[in-house]
């Protein structure tokens, strides 16, 4: 199904995940540290530039190449995968899609090389998918935006190499009386922009997530990303694409559960034989493989439609919904196959179990995906 180049990329990332990520990630996860060295090496092999053109320092690949990469990374570890996903889909992509030539020339080379990370500040403490609830405000004062408000659960926002956060803010009232939303680039270190201490998370423990606060934070008027008042349309596009990427990441986790379970079922003996000889275990793993495979087909389909320029909203929501729920189910079952060891953090499936739940929440909850699907069916 994959062409030769995509297959070669998949293999290259798979080798990287096993040889570079796997040996160090448990340690980072346990101590909640950000894997700078892994990220540096990901940058060296061009992963942060995957879907961007070469003129911006990218690899000239497509979004599908990114999804395959996320799948192979998440097969070993989700923290590293979400770091890449957020850096590209949420960090660099808005600048690439909506930025001016100056903004692109200034930020993209650093971002596509992985030398710097960008974050996307949409969610707030008081609202998530209901983006109309945005409270953060930006007021134009002379030639500066003055931003006040806070953002929650922002990935990659507080690393040593975070260069900027794009922030959605209310900038006025739209002609129809609703809030006018715009997106503004806030470079790290801007006075008035505070990165709060990292959250204590259930999973994704080696990824960087913070609450951000803005108190009379001033940035140049030229930091407006794209047109004023287009914030809503911008992040809808970003979120639609991002769903395919999250689906790919979820498929990776679901497949990683199969990998680990097959291995363990052959090693572990009970009642005189390998537990993989028991049908109870075989059927569990067969069902896990079925879910991973089916979810993969769903995201391949959504990605293919997107790349062909077709409408992909429903398919992306289906892929995200099915893949994330498959990931949660597979992680639960893989933990069960591992018995007591599955409850020990040193086993990869324990990490998978902890990492899986957020997939049903981040970038649109399962409920929101169902709303999107139902709405697209005319309900």
């Amino acid at each position, binding site marked *: 199904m994959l062409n030769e180049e995509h297959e070669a990329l998949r293999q290259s990332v798979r080798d990287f995940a096993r040889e570079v990520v796997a040996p160090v990630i448990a340690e980072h996860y346990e101590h909640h540290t950000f894997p700078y060295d892994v990220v540096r090496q990901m940058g060296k092999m*061009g992963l942060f530039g995957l879907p961007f053109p070469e003129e911006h320092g990218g*690899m000239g690949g497509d979004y599908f190449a990114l999804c395959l990469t996320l799948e192979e990374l998440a097969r070993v570890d989700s923290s590293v995968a979400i770091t890449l996903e957020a850096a590209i889909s949420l960090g660099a992509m808005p600048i690439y899609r909506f930025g001016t030539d100056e903004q692109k020339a200034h930020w993209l080379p650093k971002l596509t090389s992985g030398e710097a990370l960008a974050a996307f500040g949409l969610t707030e403490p008081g609202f998530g998918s209901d983006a109309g609830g945005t409270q953060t405000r930006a007021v134009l004062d002379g030639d500066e935006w003055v931003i006040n408000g806070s953002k929650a659960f922002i990935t990659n926002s507080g690393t040593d190499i975070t260069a900027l956060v794009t922030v959605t803010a209310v900038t006025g009232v739209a002609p129809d009386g609703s809030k006018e939303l715009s997106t503004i680039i806030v470079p790290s270190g801007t006075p008035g922009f505070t990165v709060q201490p990292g959250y204590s998370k259930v999973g994704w423990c080696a990824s960087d997530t913070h609450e951000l606060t803005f108190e009379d934070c001033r940035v140049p008027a030229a930091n407006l990303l794209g047109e004023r008042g287009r914030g809503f349309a911008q992040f809808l596009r970003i979120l639609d694409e991002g769903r395919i990427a999250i689906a790919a990441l979820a498929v990776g986790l679901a497949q990683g559960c199969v990998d680990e379970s097959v291995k363990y079922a052959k090693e572990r003996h009970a009642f005189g034989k390998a537990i993989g000889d028991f049908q109870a275990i075989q059927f569990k793993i067969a069902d896990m493989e079925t879910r991973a495979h089916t979810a993969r087909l769903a995201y391949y389909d959504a990605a293919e439609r997107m790349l062909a320029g077709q409408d992909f909203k429903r398919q992306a929501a289906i892929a995200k919904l099915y893949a994330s729920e498959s990931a949660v189910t597979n992680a639960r079952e893989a933990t069960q196959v591992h018995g007591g060891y599955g409850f020990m953090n040193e086993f990869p499936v324990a990490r998978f179990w902890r990492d899986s739940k957020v997939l049903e929440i981040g970038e649109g909850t399962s409920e929101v995906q169902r709303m999107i699907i139902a709405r697209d069916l005319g309900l």
Partner: protein
Amino acid sequence: MNIVVLVKQVPDSGAERNLRTDDNTVDRGSASNVINEMDEYAIEEALRIQEAHGGEVTILTMGPSGAAESIRKALSMGPDKAVHVVDDALHGSCALATSKVLAAALGTLNADLVLCGAESTDGRVQVLPHMLAERLGVAALTGARKLTIDGSALTIERQTDEGYEVVTAQTPAVVSVWDTINEPRYPSFKGIMAAKKKPVQALSLGDLGVAPSEVGLDGASSAVVEHSKRPPRSGGQKVTDEGEGGVKLVEFLATEKFV
């Protein structure tokens, strides 16, 4: 600097590998075929030299048509082009014959530096770099853990059991490397896309002026008469310490000639 890197396709050393029952050669269908691990370090070293000193990097492979996949992967790391010596008559060639064929191919490439892995994970004889240097009449700097270049002067740190030796030579030369020399890069997507367009020249024995009778199973200087599976590990010998455990251990080590 014109660099040629020797790349061999081998069965994955991480998988269970077998020999063929009909002619005792490597069963290429028994495990997935990959670039010999040590050769990846040679490719990386060549690319670093190219980045620092310019020049061209060429991959040279002798192997069946299926080796094209490994050549493509090698090219995706960054080298400029490849030469693939492919000929049915080469099947079962010994190290001596392989060195003859590679020397002939190198004769067409005008290399300042030939880089290769210190050993392959299938044959593991480690003699090819020396044989090749001898046939080419150039220096052999083998088992390098470090290589520095100053004009035409090459200096290596040759890894030994005790430490290392410093060995120098002038180009042209053959340098073999261990996996301590660098950390090979992973192919990037740009590299993978670019590799598709890089030239791969196929050469037959006829092109190189080597007679089929000099190579292959019939021309081999050694023959594998038979093979069998390695016996499973036995339980070993347990020494229980009842006051004289130390003496028993020493006796065991002496009997087995470990000390």
